[in-house]
C-alpha cells in the first residue's frame, strides 16, 4: 500500500497538496467562530449533489416543468427528500452567507491585505442570490412564476438597457419555454460553474493570508486538521440536521401549475428578499420611480460593501463601516419583520385578504394533485389544463362573478365569501342554490316554497315587488304549496313525499345522487301523474300545470301547461338551457315570474359548461376524499336517512 502511494505521490505530488490543505496553522487555536465559511462550502456541496440528482428527473418546458417536479415530489422514491434538502439548503446558504459576511465585517477581516478576498466574497454572494432567484422559477408553479415575474420586470426598468436585458433573460418578450431553458442553464450550469471558480479563488486567497485570527493569544496555535475540521464537521452536521428536519416536517412547497390567466394574489418573493419587497411598497419610495427603489438603492448598498476596504483605510473608517452595517442590517431585519407581521399577524384588510389568498392557493395546489392522481392523469397539454377545465375549481369562481349578485350558495358567493356591498352583507334577491336539484331542494319546493324563494321579496320586476309576483300568486306553485303542504307533510303521506322527491330528482340523471330507489320513483311517478295519495286529495295534480318527458321515455306525460316543463329537471341539459334563457317557453315563458337575465350571449359556452357541471356535482373527486365527504354528509343528515329506511319497509 505504502509503495503504491509512494508511486502515486511521485507521479502526482498529491502529498504536498494534501499537506497544504490539511496542515494550515490557526493562531489562537481552533474555534467555533471559524466554522461559517466551511458550512457555506458544505451547503454548496449539498446543492451540487441534490441538484445533479434532481437534474436527472427535471424537464424544463412550460408543459413539463411543474409536471416533472410534481412527479419528483409525489411519486419518485425519496423525491420529496431530495427536493426538500435542495430547497432548504438553499435557504440555509443565504442565512449562513449573511452570518459569514457580518462576521467578516465586524471582525475587520475585510481590511488590508484581504480586500481582494472580500471582493471575491461579494461576487460569490451575487452568484448565490442569482442561483436562488433562478431556482425559484424552475418548478413553474404559481408562486415561483409570479414572484420571478416581479424580478424580471425590475430588470426591465433598468435605465438604458432594461428592455433588452429583460428579453435576453426571459428568452423573449414574455415567459415561455425559453424562460425555463435559460433559467435552467443559468441555474444548473453557468452559475454553479462561476461559483466553483470564484470559490476556488476565494479559498486560495484565504490560504495565502491565513485565517484572520480574532484573538491569537486565545489558546496555543492549533491546526486545521483535525482540530478545526472536527468543529467544522459538527457545525455541518447541525446544518444538515436542520435541513433534514425542515424537509421532513415542513417539506418543499409546490403550488398550482403556473397559469398566466389566473392571477396569484398570494405572490411573495423568497423570504430573504421580503425586505426589498416591503421596501418597494413604501409610497415615498415609489414616488422616486421603480428604478430608484428596486435598482439604485440596492445598487448603493452593494457599492457600500465594495468600498468598505477602502473606507477602512481612513482612521475611523472601520468603525463607520461597522456602524453602517449594523444600521442597514437592523433596517433589513425590521423590514423583513414588518413584512411577516403584515402578512401573517396583522388584522388589516390587506392582511386578511393575503391569508385568504394563501389558503386558496393551497386549496388549488391540493386539488391539482388530486386531479393529477386521478384516472385521467396529466394530459400532454400539461397540468395547467387540469385546473382550467375543473368544474370544482372554476364553477365557484363563475358563480361568484355571474350569479352571486342575486343568488347565494349555502349563504355565500360560491367561493366561500360573503357577498358584500359597500362593506355590508348584501341581501340575496333570488334562491340559495347550495343544494339545488337535491332531494332536499325538491322537498323544499314542495313544502317550503315561501322560504326557498323568500329572497325574491328583495327584488323588483318592472316596478313590482318580485315577491308579490312569485310568492303571493294563488294560482301558481306558491298557491299550490300553501294548499297542499299540510297534506304532503301528513305522516300517512310520508311515502308520497319521498316518492315525489325520488321521482323528480331521478329526472336529473345526476350520477352523484344515484342510486335511485326504483320503488320510490314508481310511487312518485304515480303521484305526479295521477295524484295518488295515501290520505287527502290534491285539488289539482302536477300534470295539470307541468308536463314532462320522463327520463328515457319518448312520449310526454301531459300536454304543455302553464308551468315550466320538467323534462330532465335540474340535470345538465335542463340547467344549461335554463341559464341560457330562463324566459324561454319551456321555463318561465308562461308567466311573468322570470326576473333572471338570459346568459346565452354573455356567458361563454365553456364557462356555462363548467358552471353547470359544478352545480350538478359532475367532477372528479378521489375515492378517499369522497368517502370522508359522504361520511360527514351522512352524519349531518342522519335523521332523514333513518327516516327513508322506515319508508322503504
Amino acid at each position, binding site marked *: 500500500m505504502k509503495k503504491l502511494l509512494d508511486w502515486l505521490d511521485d507521479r502526482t505530488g498529491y502529498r504536498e497538496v494534501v499537506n497544504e490543505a490539511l496542515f494550515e496553522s490557526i493562531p489562537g487555536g481552533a474555534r467555533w467562530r471559524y466554522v461559517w465559511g466551511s458550512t457555506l462550502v458544505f451547503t454548496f456541496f449539498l446543492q451540487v449533489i441534490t441538484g445533479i440528482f434532481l437534474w436527472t*428527473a427535471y424537464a424544463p418546458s412550460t408543459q413539463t416543468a411543474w409536471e416533472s417536479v410534481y412527479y419528483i415530489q409525489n411519486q419518485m422514491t*425519496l423525491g420529496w427528500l431530495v427536493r426538500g434538502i435542495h430547497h432548504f439548503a438553499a435557504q440555509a446558504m443565504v442565512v449562513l452567507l449573511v452570518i459569514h459576511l457580518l462576521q467578516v465585517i465586524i471582525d475587520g477581516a475585510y481590511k488590508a491585505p484581504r480586500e481582494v478576498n472580500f471582493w471575491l466574497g461579494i461576487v460569490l454572494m451575487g452568484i448565490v442570490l442569482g442561483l436562488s432567484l433562478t431556482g425559484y422559477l424552475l418548478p413553474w408553479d404559481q408562486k415561483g412564476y409570479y414572484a420571478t415575474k416581479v424580478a424580471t420586470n425590475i430588470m426591465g426598468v433598468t435605465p438604458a438597457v432594461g428592455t433588452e436585458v429583460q428579453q435576453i433573460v426571459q428568452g423573449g418578450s414574455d415567459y415561455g419555454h425559453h424562460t425555463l431553458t435559460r433559467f435552467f442553464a443559468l441555474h444548473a450550469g453557468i452559475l454553479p460553474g462561476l461559483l466553483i471558480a470564484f470559490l476556488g479563488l476565494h479559498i486560495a486567497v484565504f490560504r495565502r493570508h491565513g485565517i484572520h485570527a480574532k484573538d491569537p493569544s486565545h489558546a496555543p496555535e492549533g491546526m486545521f486538521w483535525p*482540530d478545526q475540521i*472536527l468543529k467544522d464537521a459538527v457545525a455541518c452536521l447541525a446544518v444538515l440536521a436542520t435541513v433534514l428536519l425542515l424537509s421532513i416536517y415542513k417539506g418543499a412547497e409546490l403550488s398550482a401549475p403556473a397559469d398566466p390567466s389566473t392571477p396569484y394574489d398570494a405572490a411573495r418573493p423568497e423570504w430573504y428578499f421580503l425586505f426589498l419587497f416591503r421596501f418597494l411598497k413604501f409610497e415615498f419610495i415609489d414616488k422616486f420611480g421603480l428604478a430608484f427603489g428596486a435598482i439604485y438603492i440596492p445598487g448603493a448598498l452593494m457599492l457600500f460593501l465594495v468600498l468598505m476596504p477602502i473606507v477602512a483605510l481612513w482612521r475611523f473608517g472601520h468603525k463607520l463601516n461597522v456602524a453602517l452595517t449594523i444600521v442597514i442590517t437592523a433596517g433589513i431585519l425590521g423590514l423583513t419583520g414588518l413584512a411577516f407581521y403584515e402578512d401573517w399577524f396583522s388584522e388589516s384588510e390587506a392582511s386578511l385578504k393575503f391569508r385568504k389568498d394563501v389558503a386558496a392557493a393551497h386549496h388549488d395546489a391540493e386539488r391539482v394533485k388530486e386531479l393529477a392522481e386521478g384516472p*385521467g392523469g396529466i394530459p*400532454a397539454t400539461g397540468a395547467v389544463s387540469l385546473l382550467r377545465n375543473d368544474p370544482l375549481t372554476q364553477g365557484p369562481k363563475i358563480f361568484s362573478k355571474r350569479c352571486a349578485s342575486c343568488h347565494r350558495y349555502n349563504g355565500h358567493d360560491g367561493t366561500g365569501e360573503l357577498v358584500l356591498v359597500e362593506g355590508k352583507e348584501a341581501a340575496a334577491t333570488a334562491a340559495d342554490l347550495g343544494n339545488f336539484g337535491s332531494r332536499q331542494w325538491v322537498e323544499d319546493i314542495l313544502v317550503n316554497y315561501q322560504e326557498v324563494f323568500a329572497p325574491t321579496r328583495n327584488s323588483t320586476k318592472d316596478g313590482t315587488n318580485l315577491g308579490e309576483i312569485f310568492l303571493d300568486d294563488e294560482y301558481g306553485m306558491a298557491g299550490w304549496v300553501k294548499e297542499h303542504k299540510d297534506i304532503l307533510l301528513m305522516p300517512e303521506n310520508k311515502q308520497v313525499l319521498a316518492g315525489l322527491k325520488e321521482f323528480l330528482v331521478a329526472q336529473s340523471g345526476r350520477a352523484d345522487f344515484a342510486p335511485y330507489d326504483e320503488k320510490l320513483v314508481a310511487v312518485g311517478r304515480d303521484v305526479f301523474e295521477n295524484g295518488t295519495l295515501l290520505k287527502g286529495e290534491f285539488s289539482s295534480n302536477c300534470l295539470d300545470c307541468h308536463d314532462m318527458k320522463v327520463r328515457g321515455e319518448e312520449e310526454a306525460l301531459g300536454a304543455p301547461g302553464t308551468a315550466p316543463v320538467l323534462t330532465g329537471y335540474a340535470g345538465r341539459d335542463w340547467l344549461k338551457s335554463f341559464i341560457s334563457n330562463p324566459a324561454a317557453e319551456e321555463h318561465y315563458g308562461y308567466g311573468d315570474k322570470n326576473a333572471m337575465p338570459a346568459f346565452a350571449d354573455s356567458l361563454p359556452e365553456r364557462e356555462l359548461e363548467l358552471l353547470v357541471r359544478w352545480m350538478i356535482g359532475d367532477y372528479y373527486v378521489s375515492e378517499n376524499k369522497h368517502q370522508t365527504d359522504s361520511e360527514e354528509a351522512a352524519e349531518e343528515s342522519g335523521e332523514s336517512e333513518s327516516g327513508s329506511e322506515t319508508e322503504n319497509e
Partner: protein
Amino acid sequence: MNEQSQNKPAEEGVSRRNFITKFWSVVIGGIVSLTPIVVGLTFFLDPILRRRKVAGATGDAAGSQGEGFLKVSSEAALPADGTPVFQQIRKNVIDAWNTYIDQPVGSVYLRKTKEGAITAFNSECPHLGCTVSYQEANHQYKCPCHDSEFKLDGERTNEIPPRPMDELDVKVDESGNIWVKFQSYKIGVSEQIPKN
C-alpha cells in the same frame, strides 16, 4: 503508532486526544457527506425500487374487457385461407407523469387457422426487437433487421432468434370480436419473461 507510543506520557495524552479528534472528524465528516449522496442515489435508483403505475388496471382505452384483454379486430376481418393480418394495438399509456389516451403501443399478427382457431403473435422479433414482416411468397414471418425467420405457427426456421415468436392469449366473444391480451417480453433471451 509504535513511534508515538514510545514518546513521553504527556505527549501520549496529546496524541491520544489527537486520535479521538481525527476519529470523530472522519465519522462526522463521513455522515454529512454520505447522507446526501445516499439519499440522491436512492432517488436515482427509483426505476428499480418502485413499481410504476401501468395504464390498464382500470380505466383502460375503449375496448378493454378486464384482465388486460383489448378488442383489436373481428373474426370476419380474418381471411379464411390462414393469411395473417397485421393489427396495430392501441391503449392508454402512462409515461412518468403524463397519461396519453389511446396510443399505439405495438402490433400483432392475427390469423385464423384451417381448424378455425384464432392465434395472435406479438410482431416484435424476440431477437432484437424489430417488427417482423409477413412474406406472402413463402408463408413465413421474416425480420428485416437480422433475417430471423418464423413459420406461421411462430416456430423458428433458423437459429438467429433465441425463441419462437411470442404467442398472446386470444378470446372471441359472442359477436365475433377478437380480444387480445397484449404483452411484450424481454428481448434477446430464450425464455419468455414478461416486461413490467
